[in-house]
C-alpha cells in the first residue's frame, strides 16, 4: 500500500526514508538540501527515531559510521561541498563494510560554486574523494518519485552488500514539488547484523570490531580482494538503465537525472520537428555503470549524444565504456542553468554525422 502526497523533493525523500524504516538521521544544513534535514528534525523524533544536527558534515558522516557500525539503518544527506567533506567517512564506511545511505543533492561548483542545480558531482559520486580502492553504489533518480523509490532501493542495496549507497540528485529535483507515492511499510531489516559492534558481546559469546586498519600488507591485500570481489558482484547484478524506446532507433540521447527528463522532451522534438528517430537512454545507476546494457542499447547506431549538466564528466565515461563505432557527442552546461531541450536538439543536429571528438573541452 502506498499513499499519494504533494511534496517538495527534499520533504518526500525524508518522509519516504522514515517510512522505509530509517532508525537514525545525522545531517548538517546546506543549500539545496535544507528541507530534508528540517523535515527529519520534525518526523524522526516524533516517531521515536534518532535525529542529530551535527556540528559539521564530517561529524555527521562519522555519526553515521558509528550508528551503522552499531547495526542501525542510518542515513545522512548533504550537497556538493558538504559531500566533499564526507569523503573520508565514506571511505571508512566502505572499508569497514558498513551499510548506510547518503543522499547527495548537488549544486554547482567548483569551490563554493553556486546553489543552483548541476550534475558536476558525477566524478565526486562515482569515483569518490576518499582514499583507497573502494566503491559507492550510486543511484540517479530523474524525478521526485524516482528519488523516493531510489531511497528504498538504496537501503536494500546498502544492507544486501554492506556498502555505502548514494542517491544522487540535483537541486532541481530536491526543490520541485510533485505528487508522489510514499511507502507505507518499513523494508524488512537484515536477518544478520551479528557483525555489528552493538555492545552485546555476552549474548554473542564473542566481541565484534568495526575496523579498516590492516598494517600487515598481505592482510590488507586480502581485504581489498574481498572488497573487489563484492564490487564485481554488484557490477554484475545492479547496473541499471532505462531504455525509454526499446525498439530500434537511429540515434540516442544518453543522460541521467534532470538531464534525462529534458532529453525525453528533446527526442520527441527531434522526431516531430526534424523527423529523426532518436531514443532516450536514462542511466539509473552511475556506479555500477550499465556498460553492457548501454552498449546493447546503442548497437548499430551512427550517433549518440551525451547530455549532462556538467562539463563532459559523463561523456568521457560513456566514451571509455562503450568503445563502439557509434560516434559519441557531447552537450553540457554547468553553473546552475538547467540544460534545455533546445541545447540538446541543437547539439544533436550540429554533431550528428560528425567525427568522434576525444574530449569535451
Amino acid at each position, binding site marked *: 500500500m502506498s499513499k499519494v502526497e504533494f511534496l517538495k523533493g527534499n520533504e518526500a525523500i525524508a518522509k519516504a526514508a522514515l517510512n522505509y524504516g530509517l532508525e537514525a538521521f545525522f545531517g548538517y544544513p546546506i543549500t539545496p538540501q535544507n528541507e530534508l534535514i528540517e523535515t527529519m528534525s520534525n518526523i524522526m523524533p516524533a516517531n521515536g527515531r534518532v535525529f542529530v544536527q551535527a556540528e559539521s558534515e564530517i561529524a555527521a558522516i562519522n555519526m553515521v559510521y558509528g550508528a551503522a557500525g552499531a547495526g542501525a539503518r542510518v542515513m545522512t544527506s548533504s550537497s556538493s561541498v558538504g559531500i566533499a567533506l564526507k569523503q573520508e567517512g565514506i571511505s571508512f564506511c566502505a572499508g569497514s563494510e558498513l551499510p548506510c545511505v547518503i543522499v547527495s543533492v548537488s549544486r554547482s561548483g567548483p569551490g563554493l560554486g553556486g546553489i543552483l542545480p548541476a550534475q558536476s558531482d558525477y566524478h565526486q559520486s562515482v569515483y569518490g574523494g576518499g582514499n583507497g580502492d573502494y566503491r559507492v553504489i550510486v543511484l540517479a533518480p530523474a524525478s521526485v518519485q524516482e528519488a523516493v523509490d531510489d531511497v528504498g532501493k538504496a537501503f536494500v542495496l546498502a544492507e544486501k552488500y554492506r556498502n555505502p549507497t548514494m542517491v544522487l540528485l540535483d537541486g532541481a529535483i530536491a526543490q520541485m514539488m510533485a505528487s508522489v507515492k510514499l511507502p507505507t511499510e518499513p523494508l524488512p531489516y537484515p536477518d544478520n547484523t551479528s557483525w555489528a559492534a552493538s555492545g552485546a558481546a555476552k549474548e554473542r559469546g564473542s566481541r565484534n570490531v568495526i*575496523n579498516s586498519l590492516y598494517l600487515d600488507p598481505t592482510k590488507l591485500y586480502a581485504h581489498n580482494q574481498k572488497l573487489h570481489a563484492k564490487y564485481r558482484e554488484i557490477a554484475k547484478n545492479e547496473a541499471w538503465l532505462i531504455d525509454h524506446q526499446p525498439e530500434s532507433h537511429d540515434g540516442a540521447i544518453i543522460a541521467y537525472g534532470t538531464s534525462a527528463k529534458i532529453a525525453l522532451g528533446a527526442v520527441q522534438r527531434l522526431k516531430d520537428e526534424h523527423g529523426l528517430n532518436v531514443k532516450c537512454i536514462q542511466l539509473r545507476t552511475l556506479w555500477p555503470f550499465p556498460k553492457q546494457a548501454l552498449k546493447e542499447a546503442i548497437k548499430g547506431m551512427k550517433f549518440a549524444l551525451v547530455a549532462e549538466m556538467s562539463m563532459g564528466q559523463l561523456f568521457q565515461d560513456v566514451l571509455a565504456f562503450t568503445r563502439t563505432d557509434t560516434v559519441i557527442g557531447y552537450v553540457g552546461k554547468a553553473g546552475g542553468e538547467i540544460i534545455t531541450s533546445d541545447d540538446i536538439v541543437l547539439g544533436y543536429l550540429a554533431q550528428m554525422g560528425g567525427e568522434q571528438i576525444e574530449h569535451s573541452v
Partner: protein
Amino acid sequence: MSTVFKKTGGLTDTPFSYCPGCTHGIIHRLVAEVLEELGILDRSITIASVGCSVFAYDYFNTDALQSPHGRAPAVATGVKRMHPDKIVFTYQGDGDLASIGAAEIIHAANRNENITVIFVNNAIYGMTGGQMAPTTLYNQVTTTTPLGREAISGAPLKMSEMIATMEHIAYVERCMAADGPSIMKTKRAIRKAFECQMNNEGFSMIEVLSSCNIGWKLSPVESLNYIKNTMTQTFPLGVFRERKNETNH
C-alpha cells in the same frame, strides 16, 4: 595464598604495541579494571581513535569501532544514540582530541552526550615520531619545534578547563599516571566517569597526563618525574567539573 594483583579480564591477550615504559599501558589497564569491576565489560563499546592508541580496539575486551582521526566523539555519538543502554567510551590522545578533533569533542560535550572520554595527554605526537601537539608545553623541543615551542605556534591547549565550561556536562577531571597514589587516584576518577554514564548523568572526561619517554628523549623513570614536576605546572590536576555538587538550575 591470595592474589594481590593479576591482569584484568578487561584486556585481551594481545600484547600492547606501546614503547617500553609508555604509560598508555597503565591507563589502558585502569580503564579495563574499572569496566570489569563495575560489571559493564559485556555491554561496553570502545571507540578507538588515531595515534599511538589506534589499536585500542584490539586491547579492550569489548565490542569496538576504530574511528577516523579526531572523529571518535562523533562516532561515539552515533553508537550511543542507537544504544543508550550500552556503555560507550572513546580513548583519544592529545593530537586526536585537541587538534584535528577539537570540533567533535567540543560539540559532543556541548550536546552532553552520555559518553565517557579518556583523554591521554602526553604533549606530543608520539605515533608519527614526536611532533608538536596542541598540548606541547612552552619551550618543549619536538621534531617540529626544534628550538622549543614558542607563542607563535600557540599556547598549550587546556582541554579540561575548556570542556568544563560546557553547560550541562557531568564530570571533568585531570589526573596523571606518575606514581602510586596518582595511579590509584586516576583509577578512582575513571570509575567516577563511568558511573556518571551508568547513572545517565551525561558527558564525562578524564584527562590523564601520560608519558612519551621516546618522544621526550627521557628514560621511563625520568618521564614520570617530568609529568609530576613539569607537566603539572602547565596542566594542574584536579576536578574541573562535577555537576552533582552544583545547584540545579
